[in-house]
């Protein structure tokens, strides 16, 4: 694609949004993994020899975007596995990002980390670079579950890593966990509860509890198709969901998004919330998506295609879409209904000319009776049961 044909995603609209809540977020995708997990369909390459070229290309992409006058208040370095980079490389990369873009003081700077490659040196490097939030892909504290998921680490390593991060001085720690693995329902459920309790013992500031989801073209999808494993049905999934929320809320966590729990409002993922609030974001690296409030564009998934475009001085954009009001409205609904914040009814009315309270009066009345939604302070807010069916709610 011709460089000139790609509309500038961050220009006007990123500058438009100067409300503190609406400052855009910056995402960097590190597309390398030492090994691919059974369930993952995120883009990653296992060819680590491409790393030096990738870093050079990423810098070029940063340069192509650095003229933007917008200010970012979150940075999220994900993957892939950012921790495949050596401490020094990682430290320098983060330094470059912070120089290339204007980042607010006090910005949330997150790095995704895996338990199998964290060392005190690496953690110290991240601290020095200014990283103030770590998200650790623990997934489970049960070795058998970890083996099934194709993770490289064992439960003991995850525990050690968490201690290490605390020792390194990180006081905003997120832990990712996965539930809904195959196995006899009672056993699988008990294993999940044990994992959850283990995680709670570390008092992480943030917990993401994802239901294991079958994505197409993953080894997991193959296993399911061949009938070698069976994942829990919808009713059991609902039980996991609701029991997990019970336990975490009791432990003082705020269930602020379908899969996300924060130890108080202060520790919600500010970066991820931008996705759910339709706040603009700039994504760099292969397969990264950018959104300017109206247009979404995405980079090549393949590292080689990404490298090729940047070598030619072109933005490595694979394609883009301009969202119609109808599409924006649908996104606003299904994203908003994922969150405890809900949907700002006045905002929907202003942007899309639709007064949900009037036009969906009958169904909203029914959904309120069924305790799936509430109307609070001008927001349409899903209850916990409502969050569990957010995709259906969005289609009212």
């Amino acid at each position, binding site marked *: 694609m011709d460089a000139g044909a790609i509309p500038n995603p961050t220009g006007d609209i990123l500058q438009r949004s100067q409300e503190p809540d609406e400052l855009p977020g910056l995402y960097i995708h590190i597309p390398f993994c030492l090994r691919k997990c059974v369930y993952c369909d995120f883009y990653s390459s296992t060819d680590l020899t491409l790393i030096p070229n990738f870093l050079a290309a990423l810098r070029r992409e940063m340069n192509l975007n650095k003229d933007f006058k917008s200010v970012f208040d979150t940075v999220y370095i994900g993957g892939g596995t950012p921790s495949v980079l050596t401490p020094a490389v990682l430290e320098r990369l983060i330094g470059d990002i912070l120089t290339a873009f204007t980042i607010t003081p006090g910005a949330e700077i997150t790095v995704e980390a895996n338990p199998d490659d964290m060392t005190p040196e690496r953690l110290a490097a991240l601290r020095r670079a200014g990283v103030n939030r770590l998200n650790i892909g623990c997934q489970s504290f049960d070795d058998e579950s970890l083996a099934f998921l194709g993770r490289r680490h064992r439960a003991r390593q995850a525990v050690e890593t968490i201690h290490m991060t605390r020792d390194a001085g990180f006081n905003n720690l997120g832990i990712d966990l996965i539930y809904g693995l195959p196995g006899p329902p009672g056993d699988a459920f008990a294993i999940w509860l044990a994992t959850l309790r283990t995680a709670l013992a570390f008092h992480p500031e943030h917990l993401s509890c994802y239901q294991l*989801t079958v994505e197409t073209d993953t080894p997991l999808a193959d296993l399911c198709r061949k009938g070698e494993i069976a994942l829990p049905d919808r009713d059991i999934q*609902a039980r996991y969901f609701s029991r997990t929320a019970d336990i975490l809320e009791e432990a003082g966590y705020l269930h602020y998004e379908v899969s996300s729990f924060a130890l108080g409002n202060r520790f919600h993922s500010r970066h991820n919330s931008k*996705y*759910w609030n339709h706040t603009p974001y700039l994504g760099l690296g292969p397969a*990264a*998506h950018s959104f300017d409030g109206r247009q979404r564009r995405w980079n090549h998934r393949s590292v080689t295609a990404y490298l090729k475009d940047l070598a030619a001085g072109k933005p490595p954009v694979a394609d883009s879409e301009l969202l119609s009001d109808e599409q924006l409205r649908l996104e606003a609904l299904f994203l908003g209904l994922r969150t405890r914040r809900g949907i700002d009814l006045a905002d929907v009315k202003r942007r899309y000319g639709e007064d949900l309270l009037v036009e969906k009066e009958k169904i909203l009345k029914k959904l309120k009776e069924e305790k799936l939604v509430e109307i609070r302070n001008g927001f349409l807010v899903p209850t916990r049961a409502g969050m569990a*069916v957010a995709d259906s709610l969005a289609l009212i």
Partner: protein
Amino acid sequence: MNNIRNFSIIAHIDHGKSTLADRLIQYTGVVNARDFQDQILDNMDIERERGITIKSQAISLPYQAKDGRSYALNLIDTPGHVDFTYEVSRSLASCEGVLLLIDAAQGVQAQTLANLYLAMEHDLTIVPVINKIDLPSADVERVIEQIDSELGLDSDTHLKCSAKEGTGIEEILEAIVARIPPPKGDAEEPLAALIFDAKYDAFRGTVIYCRIFNGQVKAGDIIRLMYNSATYRVEEVGRFILRREKRESLAAGEVGYIIAGVKTVSDVRTGDTITLESRPCANPLPGFREVKPVVFASIYPIASDDYEDLAVSLEKYKLNDASFVYEKDSSAALGQGFRCGFLGLLHLDIVQERLEREYDLSIILSVPSVRYRFTLKDGTMIYVDNPAHYPEPMSIIKSEEPYIRATMMLPERYLGAVMKLCMEKRGVNSTLNYPNPGRAELIYEMPLAEVIFDFYDRFKSVTQGYGSFDYDLIDYREGSLALLDILVNGEKVDALSQIVHRERARARGLQACERLKEEIPRQMFKIAIQGAIGGEVISRTTISAFRKDVIAKCYGGDISRKRKLLEKQKKGKKRMKMIGNVSIPQSAFLAVLKSDTE
């Protein structure tokens, strides 16, 4: 006239009628091989797929016989279902003879016999033809034996062929010439032409298919349709050689078409007689019957925006189906629609399928109803074929429903099962005859409502296809009726309301609830489905809610993908009907009105 033969092919379903027609057409060289499309007479997709013939057609085959003379062999195709018995009888009335086709493997079947009797009623010459002699399972000897013993025909007269392989075709053509008598009639007499079909042509208006019995007709003549005395100027006459072929005139004995500026097919009635305005014949040809719809149902578009399209499509459809009637209707739950009348349930199925297929419409049908008669306190008598117009129960002093006389032919061994079925369907006053040894003729008087519901399918199933069934409306009889409503989460779904006999109410209510339960997908909340008469709930079932429907992760790159999925779901939802807060798929409406033969 001596060089004309008018004939039909009659057979049990799947005994190879269309294939034989194709072979005759091919053999006489009407079409070259390249243009040839299998089963050329069935030119509607539905006919081809279902293997049934809905609209009859005619084709003239030029044939040079072994006697050295040229003949015009007019093959008149006939529809093959009880809903269309009248049309069959009009087609047969246009012939002098029939080929009675029998499958060499299956032998004589129910429709073989029923069709034979129809042909006999019209005094037609019958040529038995044993088809599919190439099948490994063919048992020609047994079929010859059956021709003699079961059909009572001279078994020496039979012919053998394989329509599939194209063997025995010449012998059949020769037999048509030699055995079927040429038509009688007098070209000098006043015109008397029998209408056996009509088709709408977008450019020419209605094309009338007819058989000339007496007199002749040519372009410029003023013709009169005897039933309604309407007159038209003839624009063109001709014969069918697959396509219309214009001719100077049509004379006694011939089969052909007349184009006379008739705007819609419904202005022309099958079975009516055409004569000349200037020199009319004294009496119409015998056998005319006005075809009246006996089954009524409403049609609604799934998306209310499609109402106008539906209106236009019905108008177009009606051009080609004289027996279909409709008028505007509206439903509280389903919006604007049309109330339609049909000859029977198969006719209803065909109309629905053609609207969906040819006009690309998604429609919902209400539960079919017959026309009931109520006498009210104020002395008035009203007819109601739409549950929405069911009178205030307190005002009714007498409820009556239409009864039919059902005539069934079946092998004696199925008698017990069929009698049980008839009694279950509230049949009364039975008579039993044995026209041939081993075969029974069973006559029952039954409420029409029971017959339209799922009688025919079950009859076929208990007689394993060996039974044939025909019926006539006889009268109205008093019955205890009630209006059964179906409620989904407390909202009445008026398309599912039905007028039922009180005895049957609970069973019908339960069946409707169960069917809906199978078809309505689980939703975010529990759905209660109830059958009720007045305020009293007589059946109920519930569909539990699903409690999980959200993707676990949704970040930057997932949003577009997820939105596309939801857009797709949203489109699917638009094809469902919202009743109250519940999305009901089209299949649910259909399921309620389907029979339960499985």
